[in-house]
């Protein structure tokens, strides 16, 4: 377990190769300290000329001294800002890119722990908080140093005045800090309320069909109003608090100046210091007060950034899917494409979803998974892809145990049509083309033809270059499905996983696809999930899943003969079918 304070340090490691920028910034900060403390000294020299007779020559040297200092100061500030900016930009870029590619590499169950909005806010707001801190990081050196230098110079100028200044300013700062403290307790309440309002907005936007058809508008509006009212009340409470603290702050920030000026004036009056010294002293007051206030801000920024770093590290600390293992071994001669041996699985370590699953998918054959909804069919396909770790047993793909091989090489062997179609907000061609790197337009069109999508695609406004909207809302359900089938076909992998690939399709399209797939899958090993028995009854083996177990297995003819659950389910679908001889026809691998 990382300790809380260390969170930022681990983030800083992303800037390792840019540390020269940081050192440059520190160097210029040190120079800046020197320049900034010499400026009041030069000012004092100039002012004190007044009381010197014939000080013309000395006046000139002092003036030149001052001008040199100021030019140096200008150069310093430029390079200080520039170098810290470079350091921050590069570090943050590394952090951002690493976070994203890390998220992409996470195993499913770590990923699913977080709402997408939550992940987005970590990559945004939290990184912004860290950015703010990084740009100020050299101040942790600059501010204390300038403070120490100012104290020393103040001692030299007049120790009594310094004592009074330190006491008055110190008291003011402590009181001020005390006065502004209670506000922070409101901010977490405020954050929560904002979160509530935002998730309401998200639901309303994403679920707009439901909001409209169920007339939820009024209710949601009322919810939003009540959330806004409590936000308003909270904020007004904060405003009222702040009025009080603001008054104190105004007082605390002005009153010390009045006191210091008066006391300094009277000291000069009494001849204990020269006018020039008094002027110099007034100039260093800023260096006495400012660093303290600044450090308080820095510490609170530090706390905020630390919280942010903690949230980011939480993600970065999730183990990524293992990739360091053995490469997939292609030359393992085996006739079994996929094998499950005593596999058990649970999503949450509490309820088991699969128990003791055993089956083999021989090379270039088709195995179908059927069974009641929620029986674990999609889960089996997920496991073949190595999305989750199984609790028990072995899964082998072409003889390779999948938790011992590199997942990338494993997935190169697999193509899949998922139950929920996913459409990327880009062109149709690109959506299909994602199936295979550097695919040509011909290959894409060919895949679209096999999935019976070509015809409707060319009828879209821009054909293959039509841009699909978020989640493909400008397509019909079956059109989306055919695009995802085309994508899977384009990949042309030896193992094909189909999860209800044609559930949203009409019979004609389905038949056309089935026929095209039949040719396509001649040399593919297919694992297909379907509720429609027409799709599966020609499979070489059918597994019926019930309650996470394989309840029945065999081919269609065997299963339909005896008194099985399969037969029951099957007959239900064709209960009133008049024509039994229609139950013949195509299959994938006939």
């Amino acid at each position: 377990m990382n300790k809380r304070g260390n969170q930022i340090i681990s983030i800083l490691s992303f800037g390792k190769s840019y540390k020269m920028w940081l050192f440059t910034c520190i160097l210029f900060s040190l120079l800046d300290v020197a320049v900034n403390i010499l400026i009041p000294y030069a000012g004092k020299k100039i002012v004190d000329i007044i009381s010197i007779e014939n000080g013309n020559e000395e006046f000139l040297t002092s003036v030149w001294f001052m001008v040199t200092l100021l030019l140096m100061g200008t150069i310093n500030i430029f390079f200080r800002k520039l170098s810290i900016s470079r350091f921050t930009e590069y570090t943050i870029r590394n952090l951002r890119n690493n976070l994203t590619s890390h998220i992409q590499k996470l195993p499913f169950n770590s990923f699913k722990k977080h709402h997408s909005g939550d992940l987005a806010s970590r990559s945004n707001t939290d990184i912004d908080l860290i950015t703010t801190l990084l740009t100020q990081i050299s101040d942790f050196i600059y501010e204390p140093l300038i403070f120490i230098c100012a104290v020393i110079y103040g001692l030299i100028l007049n120790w009594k005045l310094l004592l009074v200044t330190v006491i008055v300013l110190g008291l003011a700062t402590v009181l001020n800090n005390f006065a502004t403290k209670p506000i922070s307790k409101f901010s977490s309440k405020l954050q929560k309320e904002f979160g509530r309002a935002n998730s309401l907005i998200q639901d309303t936007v994403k679920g707009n069909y439901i909001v409209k058809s169920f007339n939820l508008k009024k209710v949601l509006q009322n919810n939003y109003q009540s959330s806004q009212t409590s936000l308003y009340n909270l904020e007004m409470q904060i405003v009222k608090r702040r009025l009080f603290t603001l008054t104190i702050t105004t007082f605390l920030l002005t009153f010390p100046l009045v006191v210091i000026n008066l006391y300094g004036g009277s000291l000069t009056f009494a001849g204990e210091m020269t006018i020039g010294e008094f002027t110099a002293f007034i100039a260093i007051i800023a260096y006495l007060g400012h660093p303290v206030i600044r450090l308080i801000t820095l510490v609170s920024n530090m706390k905020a950034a630390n919280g942010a770093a903690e949230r980011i590290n939480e993600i970065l600390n999730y183990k990524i899917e293992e990739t360091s293992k053995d490469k997939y071994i292609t030359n393992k001669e085996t006739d079994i494409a996929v094998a499950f041996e005593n596999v058990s699985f649970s999503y949450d370590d509490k309820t088991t979803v699969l128990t003791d699953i055993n089956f083999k998918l021989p090379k270039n054959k088709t195995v179908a998974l059927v069974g009641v909804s929620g029986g674990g069919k999609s889960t089996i396909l997920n496991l073949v892809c190595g999305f989750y770790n199984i609790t028990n047993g072995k899964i082998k793909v072409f003889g390779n145990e999948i938790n011992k091989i590199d997942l990338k090489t494993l997935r190169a062997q697999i193509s899949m049509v998922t139950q929920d179609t996913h459409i990327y907000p880009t062109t149709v061609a690109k959506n299909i083309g994602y199936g295979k790197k550097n695919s040509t337009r011909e290959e894409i069109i060919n895949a679209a033809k096999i999935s019976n999508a070509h015809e409707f695609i060319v009828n879209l406004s821009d054909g293959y270059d039509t841009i699909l909207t978020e989640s493909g809302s400008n397509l019909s359900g079956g059109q989306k499905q055919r695009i995802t089938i085309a994508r899977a076909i384009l990949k042309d992998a030896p193992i094909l996983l189909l999860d209800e690939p044609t559930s949203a399709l009409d019979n004609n399209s389905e038949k056309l696809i089935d026929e095209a797939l039949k040719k396509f899958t001649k040399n593919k090993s297919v694992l297909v999930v379907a509720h429609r028995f027409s799709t599966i009854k020609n499979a070489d083996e059918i597994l019926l899943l019930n309650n996470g177990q394989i309840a029945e297995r065999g081919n269609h003819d065997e299963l339909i003969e005896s008194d099985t659950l399969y037969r029951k389910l099957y007959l239900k679908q064709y209960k009133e079918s008049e024509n039994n001889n229609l139950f013949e026809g195509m299959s994938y691998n006939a």
Partner: protein
Amino acid sequence: MLNRRNRNIYNPLGFMEKNFLPYIIGIIGENAIQAFCVNIVLAVLMKDIFNAAVEFNRSLLIRAVIIALSSLMIALALKPIFTYMYSKAAKKTMKKIRLKAYNHMTELPVSYFEREHSGDTMSRLTNDIKVIEDIYNVQIKRICFILFLGVGSTALMFIYEWKLALFAVIVEILSVFISVRIAKRMRKISDRVQIKKSKTNEKFLDVVVGFKTTKIFQIEDEIVDDYKEQSDNLTKQIKKRDNLNALINAAGLFFYSAKSTGILILGIYMIMKNSADIGTLVAIFNLQNNMGVLFNLGDILGKLQNSMAGVGRVANLLDEKTESHKFDDLVKKTPNDSMIKLKDVVFSYDDKKVLDNLSITAKKGESIALVGKSGCGKSTIAKLLLGFYELKDGDIFIDNKSVYNYSLEELRNKLAYVPQNPYLFDGTIKDNIRYGHLNSTDEEIISSAKMANAHDFIMEQENGYDTLIGEEGAKLSGGQKQRIAIARAINKGSSILLLDEATSALDSEAEEKIQQTIDRLMKSNTVLIIAHRLATIKNVDKIYVIDDGKVVECGSHEQLMLNESLYSKLYKTQCS
């Protein structure tokens, strides 16, 4: 980019309405007090103290203290009142804007949501609205303060010593001139940073949303590379911005140094020539410092202009047309007694006709089914019944009255809808079903779930009805999600039920159970079923076969099976 230039300038203060007066009084009052009674008075105090020190003048010292303390007291007493005034006005306005924008968003038509990225709408309602708050509470306030302090200090300088003041003003004008120019470039770059930032976020969402598909097709690298490309672009723009920022800082310091050293040297020279006193020099030194805030004017005006883009985006949202529905008092009855009737309906999303003179009727208590090729317009018909889109031509009647005789709310109350891709809210199962009918009791929810054949699997979940289902129901199987959506629709208890492929992900056993429920519902309700699995619709009274946006066949299953209809062919292919 072009329409960015042509964008209307929206007045952010226009949102204030009756809160405008207290706001403006408050903001002017607060900043005038801060500038005059605190910052400028300090300069006056210094002048007197220094002069008293040099001239050994005790009464001057006392006078200085009295003036300083009394104006400080005034400030302490009055400032909070003004602060309260404008803060309250601003918060009230913000609440009003938020409610207005949200309420407006709920009134927008479906086509808006299909057109715009959800991330964009959400950021208008959150980030952009926040920008308006910044205008009220930060930017306008800064501008007021800068003006009061800058102008006040300048005036006083001229009163004290016009030569020094003139010098300061000349340098200041030069610096403001430069600062405004830099700020202009700065604004452009900041704009670009903002655009790149939102691009990067969009790419990030692509990573998060398509997780599974991305992994199977091993396009992780491509997707992440896309992201990195945007992220690198972002860094490039930020680099440009930071360079400029360093320049602004250096320029600011340079002009400040030039001005203050110039004054110091000139002043000392004048003192040596006995044409000025040290107190005045000190005061002017302080005042020119105050005047320096004018340098920030360019920056703050640039930021304000940036914020205006945000205001514009909110205003654009508010300008979006709400769902239009030509409500008509004149009751238009259908000739015959029908629950659902589409008459010669013509509809298209863009310019391609989706429905072309289509007519469909369902009598009260009748059940009908729509079948046809994928993409032939079945879902579109369901959405038209719900008043999601405007018809191009033709009429729709619900329960014997034209849809235009209903308000949208009344219309939608008559229909319970299970969409083809049901959206489930991130929450518990119970809440999701309850959304069908908000006042429903737990018993009603359970009975709806039973009717949708969902009760059993719900009870098997860890927390039963209180199980959290994850974002968009991620923790449920495909068929489980569908059954929750059906339960939600049943729970609504409307007289018309629209089922769009409601059982496509279900096994035949579950489907049959739901079928029984639907059969039961058919007795008292009117049901419209869209399905590809023809076995599931055999019991309906009438089947409409749709092709090319028209009804090509119509009749009961038996009637259609008798002759060589398209339907019978479809049916046979499926059962083969």
